[in-house]
């Protein structure tokens, strides 16, 4: 295996836009293999993709990577497009690495997106294809995510993975089984089911009191619990 050692920036003299811009020339001149940009949103660090584009434009040999960038909260197809563009402009010098947040955190009262296994799968699928294939995969992926947004809530990971496996052609299996989910399964398609934020028909409002023999779906009960907690604080 080739041993390669890169410079990571996070602390120290490169951790500001000016420090990074000044260091790129000497790093390239010293013959260093690679430069790794961390994603620190609330700080002085240059955002990884912007810093990569800047560094690649100013160098001819130095490789740049993300160490690491955050995927949740970004559309995986758009991220893949940006990376593919960078890689086309600077072949073999772009090294993307992503971190995956496992838990939903709250920052200033706003929940951040949790890692969705489907996003990882999509990013990988789109990045692994070339040219026309990539365009086709990106189109499928965009349609898939748009469908999920119509459903009004994030679908559970396992369900999404299964749907993805059906929708995106498996290299070993060939294209098949597209849209196999229509009408099947408990309660039909996701967007036909009452979502947690969906308005109830008049006369059947939930706050009219508990109805006999009715239990709200788990997602709505969870949403109500959290809404109560939000009001209490």
């Amino acid at each position, binding site marked *: 295996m080739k041993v390669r050692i*890169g410079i990571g920036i996070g602390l120290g003299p490169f951790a500001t836009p000016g420090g990074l811009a000044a260091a790129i020339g000497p790093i390239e001149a010293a013959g260093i293999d690679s430069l790794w940009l961390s994603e620190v949103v609330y700080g002085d660090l240059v955002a990884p993709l912007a810093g990569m584009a800047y560094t690649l434009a100013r160098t001819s040999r130095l490789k740049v990577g993300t160490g690491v960038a955050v995927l949740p909260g970004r559309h995986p197809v758009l991220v893949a497009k940006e990376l593919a563009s960078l890689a086309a402009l600077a072949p073999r010098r772009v090294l993307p690495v992503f971190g995956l947040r496992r838990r939903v955190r709250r920052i200033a009262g706003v929940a951040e997106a949790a890692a969705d296994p489907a996003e990882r799968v999509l990013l990988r699928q789109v990045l692994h294809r070339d040219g026309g294939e990539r365009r086709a995969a990106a189109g499928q992926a965009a349609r898939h995510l748009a469908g999920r947004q119509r459903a009004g809530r994030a679908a559970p990971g396992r369900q999404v993975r299964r749907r993805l496996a059906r929708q995106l052609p498996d290299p070993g299996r060939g294209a098949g089984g597209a849209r196999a989910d229509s009408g099947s399964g408990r309660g039909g398609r996701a967007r036909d089911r009452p979502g947690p934020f969906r308005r109830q028909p008049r006369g059947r409002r939930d706050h009219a009191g508990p109805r006999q023999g009715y239990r709200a779906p788990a997602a709505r009960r969870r949403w109500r619990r959290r809404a109560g907690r939000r009001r209490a604080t």
Partner: protein
Amino acid sequence: MIEAYVDAGLSKFVVRPAAAAPGADRFIGEFADQLLPLEN
């Protein structure tokens, strides 16, 4: 320390300053002197 990792089979490393280092030029110079010879 990196040699020990290489012996154990690792081959890619990212080294970063752990504190506000004295200067970029000095860090890059020492990096080139001490770590570039470990590459193959």
